[in-house]
């Protein structure tokens, strides 16, 4: 490919079709004919008929387009990327996060901040883990990159609130210890697929 072709940014413009280009009346006589035709054709009444049928169907067949939002919610896909969740280990209830910092590194809007230290067992311990929801663009990179499936995207898409307390801290995002039995293997974005067990292969160490 030559440089010229790269420089041509006008891609696609050539194929536009002008709608109704040929239908515009050109002389006064044609314009008059169009007016008469449109006046007598009853197109306006066609419009009335359509809206009337819409009303009939809405009233008697209950064909509404609306969702009564706060009372009624549409199901959203488990792969939807909404507010993050930090998952816990099922066995111990410990945070799955190993503090590797990959999510912090990859986050393109720089909204993950974490603080780690080496604890008494010489393991890395996560002290602080914050996600600035105001900056997050919900791209899903953090969930994608996490080697431990610790950070995933939840389904909570209603982020508006009038109280500070409604905005979650790490403790709120992490499954609490006493509710651990209720934690389901998560299906959402960043989690392993449901049939991961079947897909798994033995590592060479086992042989």
């Amino acid at each position, binding site marked *: 490919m030559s440089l010229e072709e790269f420089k041509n940014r006008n891609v696609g413009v050539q194929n536009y079709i002008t709608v109704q280009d040929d239908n515009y009346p050109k002389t006064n006589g044609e314009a008059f004919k169009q007016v008469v035709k449109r006046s007598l054709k009853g197109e*306006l009444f066609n*419009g*009335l008929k*359509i*809206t*009337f049928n*819409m*009303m009939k*169907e*809405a*009233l008697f067949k209950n*064909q*509404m*387009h*609306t969702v*009564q939002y706060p009372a009624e919610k549409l199901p959203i896909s488990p792969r939807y990327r909404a507010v993050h969740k930090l998952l816990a280990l099922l066995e111990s209830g410990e945070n799955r996060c190993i503090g590797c910092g990959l999510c912090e590194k990859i986050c393109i809007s720089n909204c993950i901040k974490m603080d780690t230290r080496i604890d008494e067992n010489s393991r890395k311990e996560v002290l602080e883990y914050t996600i600035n929801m105001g900056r997050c663009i919900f791209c899903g990179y953090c969930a994608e990159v996490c080697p431990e499936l610790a950070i995933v995207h939840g389904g909570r898409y209603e982020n508006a609130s009038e109280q500070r307390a409604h905005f979650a801290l790490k403790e709120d995002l992490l499954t609490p210890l006493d509710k651990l039995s209720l934690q389901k293997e998560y299906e959402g974005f960043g989690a392993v697929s449901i049939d991961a067990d079947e897909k798994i292969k033995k590592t060479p160490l086992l042989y």
Partner: protein
Amino acid sequence: METSIIIETVVKAIVILALFSALAGFTTYIERKILAFMQRRLGPMNVGPYGLLQIAADGIKLFMKEDFIPQNAIRPIFMIAPIITAATAFIAMSAVPFLPEFELFGYTVRPIIADINVGVLFVMGVASVGLYGPLLGGMSSANKWSLLGGARTAIQLLSYEVVSGLALLAPLMLVGSLSLIDINNYQNGGFTSWLVWSQPLAFILFVIAGFAETNRTPFDLLEHEAEIIAGYATEYSGIRWGMFFIGEYANLFTICFLVSLIFLGGFNDLWFIPGGLAIILKVMFLIFFFLWTRASWPHIRPDQLMWLCWKILMPLAVLNILITGFVMMF
């Protein structure tokens, strides 16, 4: 005798004021509901059963909202303008016979405040004074959108005043009286004697002009939201804004009553339906029609509006008068 007439008139005036102010509120509810169903939505649902108390909620909101006057507005005119709209809309009603005469506790009530023999002229005249409401409101608001809305008020209402006046002339020539009661009585021969059959063109012209004069979609250029935000009413809030809309809906009722009285047989009995019910049904159908078109038809541009008025409707109206005249002559 004298005092009884005064008392009767005052009572009638109060009843009409109260009834039509309430109806204006109720019509906004009906309008929202019907528009919603036509667009497969639900409309107001949350306040009261089926959203019925929405009217009360809206009313409270309008009364409680701060009534502010913009800094550079011309205060007295800005404050008076909505009153002009509401007042003229109700004054116009005083010459409209709403129902046939009926007996109440042995007392014959004539549901018209003033049976003047120039009824149509009075109604049209006062209704056209209503043009000053939006016009002055728009011009005094110190806001360019309002100014544009005011300018459009002038072109739209003045132009369509001509069409509606000319359109009414032909049926008036047939009836030979300007009193709405006479016009109504002219059509007392049942369904076939309705003036709409002998004056179909005048009927269509008058309905179109009625749409324009009551500022209803597709002719609501005065406050075309997509172009000039809320037009002449941009700066208005609270009860003053509410008054504009009470006036608009009162005008809507007046036009519907006029159309029913002049073209659709008025309050004469229709087959088995008594006259009082007949006219209410007609008015209800017309109001529904007004809402129906609002959901179906697109807005038009100001130049199209003027084009329609002066190049199509006005010549047609004159032609109609000429033909009526010739038919009556020979």
